[in-house]
């Protein structure tokens, strides 16, 4: 016999379920206001706060037009997975944040809508060449960023002076690899760690970002994007030679292959620090630290610097591309977008016209940041297999740092990426 209490509970459950279901339905029009959704990666709290302010200012300025933006943040490390899954279920936001090298795979997979139609020649020319290069895939522009990154070698002035060294200030005066090794040898007596390479960094991207310039400078490549080849490219002599020379840093005891200290330079332990613009604020406030910055040493004849950072694109699922472009244009506008975000994260402004808002770019070390982006920067390869490429390359780099055979490590990485590439083009 059924208990009346059970009957009541069942009914209550059914009601809750129905109401709950209905509650999930969201009204998109919200009183004729057009809503543009934006997804962003979660950065430092200062950066997130700046992003929220940029969006609040946009919403304020577009109240009359009834155009409003809703921004959601997702943790850095899961961001790319989140976007990929959303794509499969056709739930991409209108505007999305993209880590520079992901433009390639996402454009190839059709997640992004090209934005060439919105970008005038004049506007295009205002962006740093590295930003345009990063956002372009197969001849079309898919993304623009508010900032770019700069990778330099910082040095501890006290230790450099004690060793009698004079580091260069200009990109064209960059040290050769032999000069760099010689300098490391000379500072060894004055520093606990001659060179910090941040091998504690968990993300694969650090290794690809930080050390690809050595390969490019030596005339090598990670992948031949025209012929879709990795085998014979990533394991070719210029790459093997470049990473062999990189391995010398560990073998000679100049750098540590494993470490838990994320910032030995600020603590006054390291003489040189191979790192990006994002560490500069921590050096500026480090007590008793006198430091300078120089361009990366060059392995070969090509003068190359690293570049690339987060940028914005419009998704395939976006219904009103023109409204999304309004938002994107605001995000990369010098006054409204670039100024607040760059003040928060210390990155390099992406537009020439934005530099007038930052007088500090007239002096070192920021002058060097700008100079190298304008003259010698190169974006990481834009390829559909970038995720696999960066993961396998980083894996090889970690093994090489620990003393593995360079040729073996690179050959293995090249074959794994080639398999991924070949499976993307059946019949090859």
């Amino acid at each position: 016999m059924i208990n009346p209490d059970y009957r009541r509970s069942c009914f209550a459950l059914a009601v809750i379920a129905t109401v709950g279901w209905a509650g999930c339905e969201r009204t998109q029009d919200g009183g004729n206001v057009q809503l543009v959704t934006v997804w962003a990666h979660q950065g430092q709290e200062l950066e997130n706060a700046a992003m929220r302010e940029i969006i609040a200012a946009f919403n304020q300025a577009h109240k009359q037009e009834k155009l409003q933006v809703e921004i959601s943040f997702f943790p850095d490390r899961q961001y790319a997975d989140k976007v990929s899954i959303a794509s499969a279920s056709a739930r991409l936001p209108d505007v999305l944040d993209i880590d520079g090298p992901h433009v390639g795979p996402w454009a190839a997979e059709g997640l992004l809508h090209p934005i060439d139609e919105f970008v005038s020649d004049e506007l295009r020319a205002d962006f740093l060449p590295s930003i345009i290069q990063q956002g372009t895939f197969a001849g079309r522009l898919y993304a623009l960023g508010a900032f770019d990154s700069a990778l330099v070698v910082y040095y501890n002035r006290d230790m450099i002076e004690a060793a009698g060294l004079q580091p260069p200030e200009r990109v064209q005066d960059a040290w050769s690899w032999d000069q760099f090794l010689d300098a490391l040898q000379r500072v060894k007596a004055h520093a606990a760690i001659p060179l910090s390479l941040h091998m504690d960094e968990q993300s694969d991207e650090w290794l690809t970002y930080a050390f690809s310039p050595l390969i490019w400078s030596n005339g090598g490549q990670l992948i031949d994007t025209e012929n879709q080849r990795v085998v014979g490219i990533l394991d070719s002599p210029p790459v093997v030679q470049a990473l062999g020379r990189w391995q010398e840093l560990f073998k000679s005891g100049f750098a540590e292959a494993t470490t838990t200290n994320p910032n030995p330079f600020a603590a006054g332990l390291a003489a040189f620090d191979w790192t990006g613009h994002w560490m500069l604020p921590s050096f500026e406030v480090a007590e008793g630290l006198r430091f300078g910055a120089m361009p990366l040493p060059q392995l070969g004849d090509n003068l190359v610097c690293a570049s690339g950072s987060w940028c914005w694109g419009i998704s395939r699922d976006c219904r009103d591309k023109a409204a999304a472009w309004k938002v994107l244009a605001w995000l990369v506008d010098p006054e409204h977008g670039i100024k607040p975000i760059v003040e928060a994260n210390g990155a390099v402004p992406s537009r020439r016209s934005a530099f007038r808002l930052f007088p500090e770019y007239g002096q070192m070390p920021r002058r060097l940041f700008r100079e190298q982006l304008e003259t010698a920067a190169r974006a990481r390869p834009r390829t559909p297999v970038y995720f696999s490429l960066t993961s396998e390359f980083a894996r090889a780099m970690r093994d090489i740092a620990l003393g593995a055979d360079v040729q073996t490590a690179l050959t293995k990485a090249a074959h794994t990426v080639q398999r991924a590439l070949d499976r993307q083009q059946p019949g090859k």
Partner: protein
Amino acid sequence: MNRREKLIALLFILPACVLIGVFVFGPALAMSRTSLHRQGLTDQHVGGYCGAANYEAVWADPDFRRAARNTAYFTVLVVPLQTVLALLLAVWTNGPGWSLRTLRLAVFIPTAISLTVLSVLWKLLYEPSGAAGAGLFNGLLTSLGLPDQPFLTSPRQAMLCIVVMSVWQGVGFQMMIFLSGLQTIPDELYEAASLDGARCWQRFRYITLPGIAPITALVAMITTIFALKLFVQPYLMTGGGPEGSTISVVQYIYEAAFFRRDLGLACAAGAIFFVVVTAIAVTQRRLLRATEAIQ
């Protein structure tokens, strides 16, 4: 049961059935289907049918073979070690008194802590003890005048380090299951054996072991399945390195999906993995049942 009661019974199991259907059988069916098609990670529709091509690609992939070897190596080491250690700890800590209770708690605590947190902590423990390193184990070795060990940075030691950490983390759970099994053995049996002059070892061999045989089968099976699903520890402690020595099958599947963007390949690997795990579990169960029957 009359019709009405049957209906109510069905209503009660309905939520469980729906949940299992949606979260277990649904995905499993979808996986089997995708494994027979070409499909990229971000594609909205299943691509063309490709027969067993994905399975062939997984089978021919040296990365998959490497991952399978590593996972097998881990399982072969962890299962006997953890089972025996759990049994010994259970026998040792079985009994009343605060000291034994404290000991049981101490062994059990790691099981209650997130594996992610423990992996990060153990990574620090295995660090070098040099200028910038803070590794406790190497610090201990150095203080004893022994040489530093590479631990996680050596292709030969890394998996063993993960085995040690995993046994330490998981042994408490198995110990608890053994403890519950030990309590089902009637005290009279031990008393009778003592009167007959049985020694400690004989009591253990002829009363305890047969008494907990069914529990041992369960523990061995659970441990095997957990071990085969190895992912968090190597993913966080070594990233699968050095030189691919700790990459596991689950990490291979994850990377096939999210790095190679090849859902067909990932699903085929997942399906192979599912069949192998099920086959091992079933075989193990049969074998242990057979031994039980003989006893």
